[in-house]
């Protein structure tokens, strides 16, 4: 008995500590948030203290995932039931597909309950975030897609080519690109190209739109690739490589051929400005103007947006909603634009005087305000990723010269239709 006493005492002490500590621990709501790492992580981390100060009863546990792995990780988290309480979302991460599967929470009741004011938000972003009429995600950022022409002023001046203006057409652009495609060191090899051809995913869509074409019709059930406008767009892209040879092949380019001076022009989005500014070679001046007008005028896009969505399976929806509201606060959104990430969904923040001098800012905001963009077209079955893969691989075969445009278009058209026909 004597021996047992100290043991019992220590057990009692441990129990006492647990009993005392547990209520304090249990009273905190633990929120699990899935967020993209790196740039967005820095933005969120800067404001966490403020959130905790306002909400001492909530503890946030983040899972930061690199952009490249985001989609796969999300699927696994959903499938394994560990998706948590709040997810940073973007239409390209199969937001629509998850909505179709009933995996999100309808946010309208939360908005109504708090009288949350959505009026400063771009209606296009909110409309695009509504899936079959229900709002499952509140966007915090929006961009008008690849809607500006970035040009290397130094290279233009060196070659004596007139600088681009906001009223340029695709013909003006091509003519300048030809004049800027040069063998600068005389070794018989081209070492400076006139443009980085717009053949990466968002910029392909800009070209399609600028020709008045697209890849799916407005019902999202039929391929629109084998139309005259779309074929013209593809022919134009193919000519850049096969006929005019004004662009290096994209998969072979360095991270930013524009910043290294390997190419003199490129189409870019808002997010490209900060990246380019970081990488730009010293001594090179560069500017951003509205994208050239294609045969159908300046219609860029697809516009896209990042936002927050609450998984249907979340047990802490109220707390998650508090974090959404907080991150959508003016101070956070102001910081978001100030970091050069993208415009926010709140138009008032975007037009803050502090931002008017930022390179390209007014150009992109003008596109947003004037509506010169198309929201990302969504297939009716929400199989966006598969669709993109079908278009890109088919286009690559054409642009490499492996198949003629007419045959290639038929192949992509069939591949796209196969995806659209799936449940």
């Amino acid at each position, binding site marked *: 008995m004597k021996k047992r006493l100290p043991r019992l005492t220590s057990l009692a002490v441990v129990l006492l500590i647990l009993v005392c500590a547990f209520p304090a621990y249990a009273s905190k709501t633990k929120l699990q948030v899935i967020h993209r790492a790196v740039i967005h992580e820095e933005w969120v981390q800067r404001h966490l203290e403020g959130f905790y100060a306002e909400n001492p009863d909530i503890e946030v546990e983040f899972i930061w995932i690199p952009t490249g792995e985001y*989609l*796969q990780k999300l699927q696994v988290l959903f499938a394994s039931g560990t998706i948590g309480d709040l997810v940073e979302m973007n239409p390209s991460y199969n937001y629509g*597909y*998850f909505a179709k599967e009933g995996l999100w929470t309808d946010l309208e009741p939360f908005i109504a309950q708090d009288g949350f004011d959505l009026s400063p938000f771009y209606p296009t972003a909110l409309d695009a975030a509504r899936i079959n009429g229900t709002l499952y995600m509140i966007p915090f950022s929006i961009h008008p897609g690849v809607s500006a022409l970035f040009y290397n002023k130094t290279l233009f001046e060196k070659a004596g080519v007139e600088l681009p203006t906001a009223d340029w057409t695709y013909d003006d652009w091509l003519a300048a690109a030809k004049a800027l495609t040069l063998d600068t060191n005389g070794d018989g090899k081209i070492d400076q190209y006139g443009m980085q051809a717009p053949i990466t995913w968002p910029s392909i869509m800009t070209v399609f739109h600028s020709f008045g074409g697209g890849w799916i019709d407005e019902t999202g059930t039929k391929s629109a690739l084998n139309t005259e406008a779309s074929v013209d767009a593809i022919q134009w892209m193919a000519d850049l490589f096969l006929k005019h040879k004004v662009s290096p092949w994209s*998969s*072979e380019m360095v991270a930013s051929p524009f910043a290294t001076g390997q190419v003199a022009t490129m189409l870019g989005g808002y997010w490209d400005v900060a990246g380019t500014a970081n990488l730009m070679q010293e001594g090179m001046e560069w500017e951003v103007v509205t994208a050239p007008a294609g045969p159908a005028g300046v219609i860029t896009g697809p516009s896209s947006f990042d936002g927050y969505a609450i998984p249907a399976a979340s047990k802490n929806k109220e707390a998650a909603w508090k974090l959404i509201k907080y991150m959508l606060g003016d101070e956070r959104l102001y910081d978001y634009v100030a970091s050069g990430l993208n415009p926010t969904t709140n138009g008032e923040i975007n037009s803050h005087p502090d931002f008017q001098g930022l390179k390209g800012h007014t150009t992109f905001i003008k596109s947003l305000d004037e509506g010169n963009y198309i929201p990302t077209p969504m297939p009716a079955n929400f199989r966006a990723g598969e669709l993109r893969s079908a278009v*890109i691989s088919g286009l690559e075969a054409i642009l490499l010269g492996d198949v003629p445009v007419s045959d290639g278009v038929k192949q992509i058209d069939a591949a796209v239709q*196969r995806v659209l026909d799936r449940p």
Partner: protein
Amino acid sequence: MKASRRQALQGYLFISPWLIGFLVFTLGPLLYSLYVSFSEYSLFGSPYWTGLDNYQRALFEEPLFWKSLKNTLYFVALNVPLSIIGSLLLAMLLNQNIRGKTVYRTMFYIPSITPVVATTLIWVWILRSDFGLLNMMLEKIGLPAVPWLSSTRWAIPSLVLISLWEIGGQRMLIFLAGLQGINQELYEAADIDGGSVLQKFFHITLPMLSPTLLFNLIISIISSFNVFTTAFIATKGGPANATLFYVLYLFKNAFEWFQMGYASALAWLLFIVVFAVTVLQFVLSKRWVYYESE
């Protein structure tokens, strides 16, 4: 309890961690995937039975299925003979009494223990067409630059090159062990009879090495059919699906395109192909593999 029964029980108890592990983590998922392959399953919700739809879709409706199978067979056809011949030659070289052979052996084996992701990224840089190391060397000796990973024609040979470098050392090591197991007296006898180098190779080395060769062949074929990581890192299946290998296609269906049912069907089809090829090798091996103990 009888002694023999107790012994059996103890035996089962000892192997139970592996037995349970196999049942829970291998056989269970295997059987579940077989069930899922007959259903429509997006990973969310529960699968619903669609019978042979997924198999029918793969075999008769999807050009990408055949494209990926063709790409994989091309890879197998290039990679298997080259890796077998290359590593056998390496092993024979390093089986000679040359100075510093342990250093060479280590050097050739190092790629096998380096993470594939890291080596692939380095190879991507070496194979760049504009300022890649390989093209720079080619141009130095007056040869034209080759669009290694960026053309549909060269993409698979380039990935074979990467894969040879990665697995060559491993195969070499197995061959080396096989070579050292050959009784030297056989060579001495051949020397006395005046056998040439080639005669010794074809009549002593090759027959004596045939069990090792069979092992390497089977492992090579299976791993070549399963080629995934190099393409996933270096080309993502491009350009124009030229390196969309079977397992990469399967992965995309499962983890990017919400088609776990179809992906499971693909996995079982691949299993059937690989199983058939392996059985065929065992059957044919009776004609050319020589076991000393027989």
